[in-house]
């Protein structure tokens, strides 16, 4: 902000400033009181989330030794990782390819992307569940037939699992990545690419050395978003996850039904701690880069979060 504009705003008077600041304070309280409570009760010595009975770390110990909880946490990481990886690579490739297709093809893709983004998770969950059930019901007898005919012994049985969760998550997150990357491509400096071609660089080399670095913010934001969405998704996972492989949100939801204990608070607090550490690290890296590039540090993050739906 320039000094002149700041002066202009200052003319607005200190009471306006105070009103805005009070409003902001209230919102931050609203946002953080529930999270504070979650963290507070994770140190509860008692067995219920509602009553605080002394301070202890027992629930952290309990959580870290709970095979089911840790399994669920691991499942969420696995699902989040693969979703982010697949969605980001496929989404980016598609966004690049869409620059070079006839308008009609692009229109079809745009429409599909649009639909993939606006369809609620609950409908995706239900529709993909029905699809998988039908698919497996059709594929498994064939596998059985082929294996028996070939005398290969017990046929493989395909069923729901973490892979079905990843498949369903990729649909939505890939669409998001495509939009992000295409927006970035639209604003890209084409002269660099042309210069690269003029210098007789191969298309691949141009892509790796010129295009990719320019797309990086969009790709990073897309990957972060895909991971965040996938890691925290309950609705889709609850429909398409396989037996005995709950993700963390599924584990938490069933804990709410079993009667929640501070163990869940402990897990949530640990995830939060890791997140904040990561955020601070990323923030520092961006700030350094931003200083070099003269951009505001928060923008890549802002971009990343604003799209999380």
């Amino acid at each position, binding site marked *: 902000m320039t000094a002149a504009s700041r002066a202009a705003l200052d003319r607005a008077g200190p009471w306006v400033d105070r009103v805005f600041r009070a409003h902001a304070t209230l919102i931050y309280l609203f946002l953080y009181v529930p999270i504070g409570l979650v963290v507070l009760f994770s140190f509860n010595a008692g067995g219920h989330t509602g009553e605080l009975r002394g301070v202890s770390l027992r629930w952290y110990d309990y959580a870290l030794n709970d*095979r089911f909880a840790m399994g669920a946490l691991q499942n969420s990481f696995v699902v989040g990782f693969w979703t982010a990886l697949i969605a980001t690579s496929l989404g980016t490739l598609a966004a690049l390819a869409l620059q070079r297709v006839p308008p009609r093809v692009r229109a079809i893709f745009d429409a599909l992307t649009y639909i993939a983004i606006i369809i609620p998770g609950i409908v995706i969950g239900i529709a993909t*569940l029905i699809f998988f059930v039908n698919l497996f019901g059709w594929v498994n007898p064939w596998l059985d037939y082929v294996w028996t005919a070939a005398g290969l012994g017990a046929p493989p049985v395909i069923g729901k699992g973490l892979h079905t969760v990843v498949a369903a998550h990729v649909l939505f997150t890939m669409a998001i990545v495509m939009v992000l990357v295409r927006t970035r491509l639209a604003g890209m400096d084409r002269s660099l690419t042309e210069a690269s071609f003029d210098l007789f660089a191969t298309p691949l080399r141009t892509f790796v050395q010129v295009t990719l670095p320019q797309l990086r913010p969009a790709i990073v934001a897309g990957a972060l978003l895909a991971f965040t969405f996938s890691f925290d998704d309950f609705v889709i996972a609850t429909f398409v996850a396989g037996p005995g492989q709950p993700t963390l949100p599924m584990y938490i939801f069933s804990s709410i039904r079993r009667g929640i204990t501070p163990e869940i608070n402990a897990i949530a607090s640990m995830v939060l701690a890791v997140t904040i550490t990561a955020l601070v690290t990323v923030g520092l890296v961006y700030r350094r880069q931003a200083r070099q590039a003269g951009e505001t540090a928060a923008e890549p993050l802002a971009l990343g979060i604003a799209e999380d739906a």
Partner: protein
Amino acid sequence: MDRNEFRDLYHDLRRGRITRRHFMAVTGLGVASAVVAACAPAASSPTPGPTAEPTPPPSEGATPAPTIDVNADWTPPEGVDLGDTLIMTTWPNYHDQKTLDRFKELTGVTVQLNIKGSNEEMLAELLVGGTGWDVLVPTNYTFETYGSKGIVEKLDLTKIPRFDASRYDQRLLSPAFYPAGSKDQYGFNKDWGTTGFTINTKQISTLLTTWKEFFERTQADLSGKVMIHDYQLTSIGSALVALGYSFNSVDDAELAKAEELLVAVKPHLFAITSDYQPAMRSGDAWMTMTWTNDAVQLHRDIPEIEYVIAADGGEIWSDFFAVVTGAPHREAAYAFLDFMATPKVAAQDAIFHGAPLIDSAAIALLPAEATGNKITYPDPASLTKLEFGTAELLTSQARADLWARVKSA
């Protein structure tokens, strides 16, 4: 009446083609008398010590002596790989964590609980398949569907040596046989109980006695303080009873009346949920439709919460242990069933959950506080109007659609 006639009638009853009253009249079985005679501990039942030889309580017909030492601890089967996991789908507040911990201690198998609020909720997932569940705790009226669809497996009784049918009342065990009256057994009783309501007497001074009053007061002075189950069987059933109809009615006109009542009541409810203990404990709600075991637990911790078996009727039920077809941890499932069929284990578990048992050897092991608990073992006279759910209700489209409409009203 010969065995076949009985079987046909019983089949009709479970199909819902005849009413329970008709069945009772024809077969001469009174629900209350049957259940109480078989399952209520005798008043003079001795508190068993480690050496006391428990007397099996009198049951109809000759009850052979238990074939196992009822005081014996359970030991895992030898030479069987049980794995390390067991997934059991069951109801809220229904198992003592200590029982599950003990099982883990003895076998290394951790029991993971899945909590559902209704048999229909279980069925919905089971129909899709690939649930990964091992043990199920279904209610009496589900076996016709589960047996015919092969959702739960015919029990391999050789893997449950501690189960002995002679310790169980045959009429309460009978729903586990499919086809009805055959020798194919798909489960055995965990316990039985009733569906009444609990009242926080600190907030509500006059005790309600009927479902009619329950629904009337909900729309009047208790508005916003009452909960009913998220369960078509009990919520529609109790509304039917309040209107003077059978708990099991599938009559269109009667169901329409019940729907009208439930839709009128809905805005006055605090919540529609089958997990009502938290709200009763926190004081958010003052009255709720309640199963026996929850009533015992609530009353134990908060004495002013009282349980009422409605004088105008309602449900009497029995839940069973069953093994899901294709269970990924089948051996562990059978080991767990055998564990729970051990009288000492079942008795210990019942002290926590509070539902009345059926295994006579386990009942004999219960301490006097448990057998003397009036919520667990109510006055037999209070049970006479109660009805078991009928098999057709699990899959009745009329009831399912009605309940879905009420919830979205």
